[in-house]
């Protein structure tokens, strides 16, 4: 087994080590703001019918113009967006019913909602380096200001499914924008195990624990079927990889891989076919793990999942591929 796959196979435990500490700290800080459980969303009207579109922020989202095409379709089902795709959705005229935020990181995630105190482009090049939201990367201050206005304007029409691990600054931003928050705990470990962190957290705040699959996109998909009870789910912008030709330095984990492996860093990347576009994409250990976990989880989900991303590396027997319009034509009585 090559280096990248070996690392990917061990990321379940590593993720716990990486985020449990700060996630639990954030849960304690967020406690006074917790008013509603995510389970209450089952009674909230969020779109028509039993279908949902889950929107991630992978490069295909803008390469395939997915948001504009979704808007043009006049889709009336449920739209669930990850936080990093919120800007693309609002700029494209699509107001998601639900936005999902998970990451306990205390600085970057706030940018997806517009960071009120941003007076100058930060030294960190995270947004400029990645293809998650190219608009935010071009003129960071002006784009941030525009995003603040959009989120404030549409906030009262949206709901947020917020993990207790989320950064308190993100929570404060949602509150200020009038986004109603519905809370849940990330499932950190086996709740049947002795001294389970998940169980202790549940006993402390009474919120359900959600198995998040390693990333916010998978968590949003879990919410769509396990909480909102949607039975037909289309994915857009869920790539878990990079298009051919993407420079390694513009991948998410490049700084860490470069620092750890030096000149060997390229060995950690994994080529994967992207059959919809007949291209060979590539992925890194973390995204490869996300992909494998998603494909595993999809086998037992009580929902049909169709990947309408039109790119990326997520495909398998339980996650067939389709053009976005073809999927939309099959849902909510459009056949």
């Amino acid at each position, binding site marked *: 087994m090559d*280096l990248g796959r070996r690392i990917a196979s061990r990321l379940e435990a590593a993720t716990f080590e990486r985020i449990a500490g700060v996630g639990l700290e954030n849960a304690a800080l967020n406690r006074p703001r917790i008013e509603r459980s995510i389970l209450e969303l089952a009674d909230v009207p969020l779109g028509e019918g039993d279908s949902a579109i889950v929107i991630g922020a992978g490069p295909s989202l803008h390469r395939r113009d997915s948001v504009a095409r979704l808007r043009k379709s006049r889709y009336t089902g449920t739209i669930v967006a990850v936080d990093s795709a919120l800007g693309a959705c609002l700029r494209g005229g699509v107001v998601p019913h639900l936005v999902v935020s998970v990451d306990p990181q205390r600085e970057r995630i706030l940018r997806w909602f517009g960071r009120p105190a941003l007076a100058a482009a930060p030294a960190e090049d995270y947004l400029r380096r990645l293809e998650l939201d190219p608009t935010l990367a071009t003129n960071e201050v002006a784009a941030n200001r525009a995003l603040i206005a959009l989120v404030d304007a549409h906030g009262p029409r949206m709901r947020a499914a917020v993990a207790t691990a989320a950064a308190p600054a993100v929570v404060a931003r949602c509150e200020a924008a009038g986004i109603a928050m519905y809370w849940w705990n990330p499932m950190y470990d086996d709740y049947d195990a002795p001294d389970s962190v998940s169980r202790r957290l549940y006993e402390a705040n009474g919120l359900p624990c959600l*198995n998040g699959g*390693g990333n916010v996109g998978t968590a949003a998909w879990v919410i769509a079927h396990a*909480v909102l*009870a949607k039975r037909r789910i289309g994915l857009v912008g869920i790539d878990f990889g990079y298009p051919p030709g993407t420079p390694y330095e513009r991948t998410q984990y490049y700084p*860490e891989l470069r620092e750890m492996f030096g000149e060997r860093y390229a060995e950690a990347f994994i080529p994967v076919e992207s059959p919809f576009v007949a291209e060979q994409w590539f992925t890194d*250990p973390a995204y490869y793990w996300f992909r494998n976990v998603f494909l595993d989880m999809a086998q037992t989900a009580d929902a049909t999942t169709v990947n309408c991303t039109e790119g990326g590396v997520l495909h398998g027997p339980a996650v067939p591929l389709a053009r976005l319009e073809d999927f939309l034509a099959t849902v909510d009585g459009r056949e």
Partner: protein
Amino acid sequence: MKEFLKGNYKLKNVVKETAASEPSSTDEFEKKALSRLGGSICFVSKKGFLWKGEDRKADGSRQTDR
């Protein structure tokens, strides 16, 4: 091993024994990588999608306990 094996001759050169537990460079790389890489939320294998506590263990739409 040298506490178990004894020879009836003496070596001219001193042989340095490699510690059995010493990690290879690849192991060391991976150990470092694992502490830096990973997701923004855990995945717990062989568990369901949603756990609502003991009182409401039937967790939503999940049909199998993963």
